[in-house]
């Protein structure tokens, strides 16, 4: 092959010297500062909280800003002047979205994240029978959704309740504050913190659960400090480095480092709890998920509702969430819809770039859900008189 000599070495001439090396290092530092400032100015994130479309590049370079910095930028005392995202997901008041009434329609309420809301919309569209009502929050984890179910005073007016749970956010079921883990969006809403004590589900309410309470807390340094101390004590995802605002927020390079830190933390969490290869049945998240699913079913049945679990097997996570819940679902005889049975979680064609299912797949899942509801409602119906 006439290949080069294996003794090829990189010994080289030695121009310059320490002085030139230091000069070069100085230039590198200077250029880094120039790039940092230039990128920060050119792609500055708009200060107006109502601007919901800052541009992809501005968004990219802003991701690593501290949560507190992003929340303060997005929040005004007047809800109408605040960013729309700050209004989402509060328990008080709990906002439900209602599909158009259908004659003789059967009301089904969904509790969950955007996947659940999309499924509700699809069910409303494809089914002549089911009338969808949905209560959701962006990126809602199942502890939030179960908290919403418990607080929903109108739940008894539905015939079925659908609780969503998703593999990509399963580890975050232990978090009462999306601001502690969701680095993509600054989400101020809070959730219940559930824990297991001798196998029993216990709940701790967050320091604030309404927009007004949040604004009051944010604007009162002592209250904000107390709230952060509560999150630090109760939320395993809480990391002061990621949450609290510092002057380093102004540096793009520092924001990139903070963003990497957050990603690394999230990858570590997911790897420990659930990934495409398996799940840890002893992890707090998996045990809590099973306990919440069982408790949800018990409470729904007590209210005369048919409980259904919507198991969202995210892209790249295989069917591990379905497996992690299978024992509880079988033992408690809970109806469920596991997406991995209909949409291959390894095939990107089944998903949109933002990780939601394609519209066609949502409609397909809605049709499957309608079949599950038909079966479960028929089984739950009282036998005809005379039998």
């Amino acid at each position, binding site marked *: 092959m006439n290949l080069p000599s294996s*003794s090829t070495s990189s010994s080289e001439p030695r121009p310059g010297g320490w002085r030139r090396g230091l000069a070069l290092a100085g230039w590198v530092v200077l250029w880094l500062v120039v790039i940092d400032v230039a990128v920060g100015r050119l792609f500055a994130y708009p200060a107006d909280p109502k601007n919901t479309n800052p541009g992809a590049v501005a968004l990219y370079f802003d991701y690593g800003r501290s949560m507190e910095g992003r929340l303060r930028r997005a929040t005004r005392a007047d809800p109408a002047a605040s960013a729309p995202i700050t209004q989402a997901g509060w328990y008080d008041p709990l906002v439900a979205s209602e599909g158009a009434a259908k004659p003789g329609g059967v009301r089904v309420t969904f509790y969950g994240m955007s996947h659940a809301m999309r499924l509700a919309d699809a069910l409303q569209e494809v089914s002549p029978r089911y009338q969808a009502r949905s209560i959701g929050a962006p990126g809602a984890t199942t502890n939030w959704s179960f908290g919403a179910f418990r607080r929903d005073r109108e739940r008894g007016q539905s015939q079925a309740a659908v609780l969503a749970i998703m593999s990509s956010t399963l580890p975050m079921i232990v978090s009462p504050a999306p601001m502690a883990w969701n680095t993509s969006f600054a989400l101020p809403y809070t959730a219940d913190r559930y824990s297991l004590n001798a196998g029993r589900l216990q709940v701790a309410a967050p320091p604030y659960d309404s927009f007004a309470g949040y604004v009051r807390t944010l604007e009162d340094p002592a209250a904000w400090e107390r709230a952060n101390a509560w999150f630090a004590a109760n939320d395993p995802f809480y990391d002061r480095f990621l949450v609290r605002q510092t002057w380093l927020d102004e540096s793009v390079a520092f924001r990139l480092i903070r963003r990497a830190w957050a990603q690394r933390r999230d*990858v570590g969490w997911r790897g420990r709890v659930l990934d495409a290869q398996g799940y840890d049945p002893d992890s707090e998240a998996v045990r809590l998920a099973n306990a919440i699913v069982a408790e949800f079913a018990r409470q729904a049945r007590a209210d005369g509702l048919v409980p259904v679990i919507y198991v969202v097997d995210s892209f790249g996570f295989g069917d591990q969430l379905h497996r992690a819940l299978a024992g509880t679902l079988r033992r408690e005889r809970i109806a469920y819809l596991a997406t991995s049975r209909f949409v291959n979680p390894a095939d990107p064609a089944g998903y949109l770039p933002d990780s939601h299912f394609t519209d066609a797949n949502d409609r397909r899942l809605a049709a499957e859900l309608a079949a599950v509801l038909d079966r479960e409602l028929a089984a739950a119906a009282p036998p005809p008189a005379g039998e």
Partner: protein
Amino acid sequence: MLFNSLEFLVFLAVVYGLYRALPFRGQNWMLLVASYMFYGWWDWRFLFLMIFSTSVDFWTGLVLDRGRLKRNEWLVPAAFLSAAALLLIGCDFSELLRVVRGAGSGAPIVSPLMPHVLVGIPAFLSAAAIGYRVLVTLPEAQRRKACMIVSIVLQLAVLGFFKYFNFFIDSLVASLNAAGIAAQPSHFDIVLPVGISFYTFQSMSYAIDIYRRELKPTDRFFDFALFVSFFPQLVAGPIERARNLLPQMSNPRTVTGEQIRRGLFLIVFGLFKKIAIADGLAGTVDQAFANPTASWGTVVVGTVAFAIQIYCDFSGYSDVARGVSKLFGVELMINFNQPYFAKSPRDFWQRWHISLSTWLSDYLYKPLGGNRGSLAFTCRNLMLTMILGGLWHGAAWNYVLWGVFHGTVLSTHRVMREWLGAPRDNAFTALLKIAGFGLITLYGWMLFRAHSLEQIGNFTATLFTGAGGLTVTAARPGFSAALGVLLLVAWELVQYRRGGDAKFYRGLPDPLTALAIAGMIFLTLMGTSNEPAQFIYFQF
């Protein structure tokens, strides 16, 4: 421990601080311990295999050269190997403490391997001692040959078991089933030790060079152990030769300012290629190759992305390895030299994974006869070398096919050169050749990355029929990768225009060089939020 991890940064800072504070012998001891820690970070148990490989070739070298071992030359490696065997036994210290406190959970304190180790190590050492007694009684020529054969068989047996055992069993069962003989696959749950192919080849080359009388052996076991395990190049090369690296381990080193400057640059450049580009493309590649119904556009985008990813991943690792070594005053061989500017298959293998291609050339192609025979004989040798080179990468048929593909391309090129001669290039024909051979290389990368022969069939059919059109179903590359590729292409184009000189930037004004380096650092920071992926070549 990955080069692109915080752990490694801390590890390097500590090791480097100690290195600068210690005298030469202390430096070597410390580097050896650090290298074993670096390797043990994945799995301490596999250190035993490396120490086994080290001991075997240390003894082999001395017996080949002198015919006998001094007492210490026998005892030190034997004691070291026995101590390393304890790692295989392992110990669950928390359970041990619980047992001591009378609260044991019943879990085993030591590995179930303990009886095998307690019997196996004395058995191996006894066999080695008996074998040695027999060897030293043989005439020199026979002794040297027998010694060389024993060493190669032992090294390849370890490599073959850990890397190829299940593959051969599967292939055998499939062949038997195809012949109508019912057979059930029987698997061992074998974990592939990281970097085993790299350090095995490195260690083997030492023994073979001594056998060929091209190298004198060392009688310092721990210098040799450091040569085999030197952490910057331990798990993914370059596959060093003893004649280059061993003297640098055996003699006091000086670290020059130039080495520090160049080393730091190589570390920045390597991390830029790995973190900003390779990791930024990983999602695109993974999704394209996970898609069972990939369109023409998806196959093309996935393959091009993989070609860039594997180059940046592997050459990035090599750059960091060379850069870190320079900080310790150690020069490693160049492993990549602008491979995508190759104008022919021969040119490509002089630029891609140079340490492996030279190894294959020196220890396989040339011993097979090389080009010292008819054209057909040369083509046979090329084909055999490339097939084994493909198989070196992993135990799967797609690597074999990749080797066959490159063997065919090399042979075809050889035949054409023989018949047509070697025409002189002008700028236009050079460009045409780079582009043309680039397409061939790309198809090879598709074979390499595919996870089954069925996928290769499907993707090849899609490429030639255009099925699915230009639609691309794969994740978009990371922002850092998109910008990083532009910077890398510009950098490499300038380097190519300047005769391929990797240090061309020294001729540029400092502010311009600094701007490029600052750009790399900034893009690397952008890339740090890409999901960190293990270096692709770690699996080989």
